[in-house]
């Protein structure tokens, strides 16, 4: 009795009915997966988020503004570290000015002030400026990757990707 039942089960499993519908479902799932995949384009037209920023030796100690207009980044070298600092005020997204005489960034909109390190110390800014990922390429060029952001209040500035030892 149990024997026949087992063989019946096996036969049922490999029957045209099961195999047919399993294949049908698989094919439908495959097409659905294609449709899902279709919604992710293979190229995107977002603005450039990475750029090459010369060699570490190109930078003197202090704030370098050469990539500010094109990429919105200050390269800041101090205390043996080179960082890429975002130039967007954390208050309302204005663009602060670097005041070399006073050694601080000052936002023209609501007066937020930041130290050279990016730490906020006056005005309404709620948190320090953000830093971007910097890495060294084998040819000695610095690559700045703006897709990866490091925030001081999250303790991310100590991440080895957030600065270069120079």
């Amino acid at each position: 009795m149990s024997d026949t039942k087992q063989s019946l089960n096996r036969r049922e499993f490999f029957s045209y009915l099961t195999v047919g519908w399993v294949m049908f479902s698989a094919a439908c799932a495959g097409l659905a997966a294609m449709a899902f995949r279709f919604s992710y384009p293979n190229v995107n037209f977002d603005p450039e988020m990475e750029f090459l920023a010369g060699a570490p030796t190109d930078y003197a100690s202090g704030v370098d503004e050469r990539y500010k207009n094109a990429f919105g980044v200050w390269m800041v070298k101090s205390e043996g570290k080179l960082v890429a600092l975002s130039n967007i005020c954390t208050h309302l997204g204005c663009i602060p000015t670097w005041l070399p005489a006073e050694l601080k960034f000052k936002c023209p909109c609501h007066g937020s002030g930041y130290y050279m390190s990016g730490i906020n110390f006056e005005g309404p800014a709620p948190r320090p400026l953000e830093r971007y990922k910097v890495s060294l390429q084998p040819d000695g060029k610095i690559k700045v990757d703006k897709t990866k952001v490091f925030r001081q209040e999250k303790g991310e500035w100590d991440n080895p990707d957030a600065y270069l030892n120079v």
Partner: protein
Amino acid sequence: MSESNKEPGMAYSMPKLHKIMAILSFIFLVTTLWVFLDDYMRPWKAYQVEALKIKRRHLDEQIKAAAKEIDSTKLAELNAKLKKVEEIVQSRKSDIESAEKDLKVIVTKFKDQTITNGILNGQVGAINFKYETSLSHKDPKAVTDKAFNKLQELKARFVKGKDSLKALQAEEKVIVTKITEYKKEVTRTEKEIKEITNKLNLLELAKKTTTIDPVFALRNLPFIDFLDPTIKIHQIVVNNVTDDRYFRHVPKVDRCITCHTFIDQPGYEKEVNPHKTHPRIDQMVGLESPHPMKQVGCTSCHGGEGHRVHDFRSAAHMPDTDKQKAEWITKYNWHEPHKIQQPMLTKSQSEASCVKCHSGVELIPGATVLNEGRMAIEKYGCNGCHKIDGWEHKRKTGPSLLKIAGKVDKEWFKSWVWEPKAFNKHTKMPAFFMQSNNSKPEFAKLNMAEVNAIAEYVWDKSKPYEANEKYTGGNAEKGKELISQVGCMGCHGVDGLEDNSKKVKAYAGPWLSGLGSKVKPDWLVSWLKKPWHYQEDTIMPSMRLSNQEANDIAAYLLGLRNVQFEDLKFAKLNLADQDRVLLDYYTAFDTVASAKEKLAKMDSREKTLELGKRSIGKYGCYSCHNVEGFDGLAGIGPELTKVGSKPAGQFGFGIHHDIPHRRDAWITAHLQRPAMWDDGIDKVFKDLNKMPNFYMSETEAKKITVALLGQVSDVIPLSGVKRLTASETMYHDGMKVVNKYGCTGCHQVDGLRGDVLNMYMDDINQGPPRLVGQGHRVQTDWFYNFLGNVQPIRPWLQIRMPSFNLSTEEKNRIVGGFQHGSKQPTFTEPAESVKWIPGEREETIKLWNALNCVSCHSGGFTNDVALAPNLHLASKRLRPTWIKKWLTNPQAILPGTSMPSFWGDDGKTPIETGYFGGDADKQVEALTKYVIELGQK
């Protein structure tokens, strides 16, 4: 299945339905998998995998090199040292631990204080807002005061809180410094080790990204490859350059770098395509080049379908040679691109695209083929008949015919027009007649009537010309020598001097051949002495020849005869033919009967002049030659401004199926034998293709093709084109005059041309001076006056700076152009009198003597033959800063100059240490002063 198996109410048996369902589902499943595969298999992916391997190979080599660089003994030493110092630091363990404990306490306190301060900060802000609001609302004083007092209290607390935070920070710093101090030996040694191994480490890190491992496979698996694929389409979006989609211009998208993986990275020059570095990475594509890839893209220059990456063909690659074509056919199954707006320019044509962005410039440095093509267009005067935007300022290529009767014989003229090459095989004058489409006897005789009529018309309109000099006979041998010495060869090729002529490849003037059979002797002497006496707007300069010299040269040139040509007798005007051709014109807008009536009313002379005028108009003679009655008329050829965008289908290929039906192929073929499109086509006389035959070589035709292919309709946005600054405009305007008068036939200007220098390869100092930084070298006033009144500067030169008939404006343009090209202010004259510190002058004279300057610069010092310019003139001619620059290192400016670089290749090596302490700068300064002083005495 038998009937009995069916359930009642069933049309089919269930097992049968299941079976069909299973079969169809199987097919369905297979097609679904096929969809995945079809989507996944792309040729470019293979290139990227290959590129990965290549990169790995390169990295391996670099790693090997970097490893070799590392001083292994030093590294071992450092590692040993590290172990030692680690022990030292270990011995301070208890100190470190206690410091770290302290630090922990501080950090906790710090955090606590931060929270307190944060709360206070918020309260201060809120109360402050409340206070300010109540002030602005003019609340009762009691309310305001209350808020104010509260605010002051809070602020005081906040300040205190901030103070204690600062105190904590200071404490923290002290402890941190202490800990660093404890650990300093290790940190230092680690840093030293890192300095040595850094490069290797970076390379190893980079190598990791090139491994092909399971993660790599996973990332690039079908379906999953949207997450973070390593193999993907790379693209450049160029907003500055657009694609013309007719309704709209859209930013260019170039995906070429998907396969051309290392195009912008130096170091891959030896790989094969597509993995090769761009051959001119310093000029193009490179990050630091003037045309970085991300700003210019690829197809902006190369053409083709930059956004298509499906396979090799879809990008519309074009082979440069037949060999390459055959290779591509086997390798990529290549065929001519179909339905493509702008196929890629072949490798040798890519310079064409420079013109798209660099307008207002005649010669573009580095674009050799393009420059030669453009010069050829000017040489043959294509722009005369064919309008090209931006070429309007060019003069007519051929000589003026306004006074032709005073120059040549009418019979000669007819034979010449009939077949110019029969007289001068080097001539640029093209052949209109006896071409494949009009050499039939019935056409030829009509052509003859036309030529007769043209001559009659030109002679009728020709103004009388009286030569102002007389040919008195001269020494032909001497003349020949003079021709090769004084500089004629800079513009003219000359019979009998073929060797040098071929070296120079003169460009501005005609090849001088058979003049004895052509011009009147008096005219020739007169022309040589003062060319603008005959033709006011000629660019032919006066070489300031003496009467004897002029006669000698004339003697030589008149001795060149073409006897065969002299014997030619041109057929007399056939009146019937004349009528027949005129009838063609008149019947264009009229019936045959009334046209004939009109003709009958005219006398023979009238008819001839009418036909002459009509024919000059028909063949466009006036485009190259000044002819009375044709002022300001547009050329007869189609405009070429946008010929590079003309659809290939709009070119008529006639019966020539062997010529590839492409724009470039048509233009090249057309230039070599324009009449070919009439082959095998039955045309009436008036409809024949009139483009004359220049008997151009294929090389030349291809160069012109390149120049014309760049004439495209693409509108490059202002942000994308090279916009000349005011200064650059001045420079290029000046260069237009320089090019017009053929200055570059003799002078090499900042490395460009200087054709005649090819005659002086033995001793370049015998040739015309090369002009490098000319605007910096000479003073503005001097330069202007020099152009108007040439004074020899280099007495040892046989070649002469000619006197051109320049207008004031032209002189100003030349001077201004050079000045702006060198980025110099207009006036920098030396000071009125040179100021010396006591003793300096004496020391300078000693140095001067030590260097023995007068051995070459003898002018005004000794009676020796001068081998260098007279330094007494220098202070009026040269800018002081330039004198210094020149003295410092002349070889750097003019390689091969006879002026020695005293201070070595760097201009700093001390010499003559006895003077000015051997300080090069001081010595140069002193000599400069002395030279200026010389001129002021």
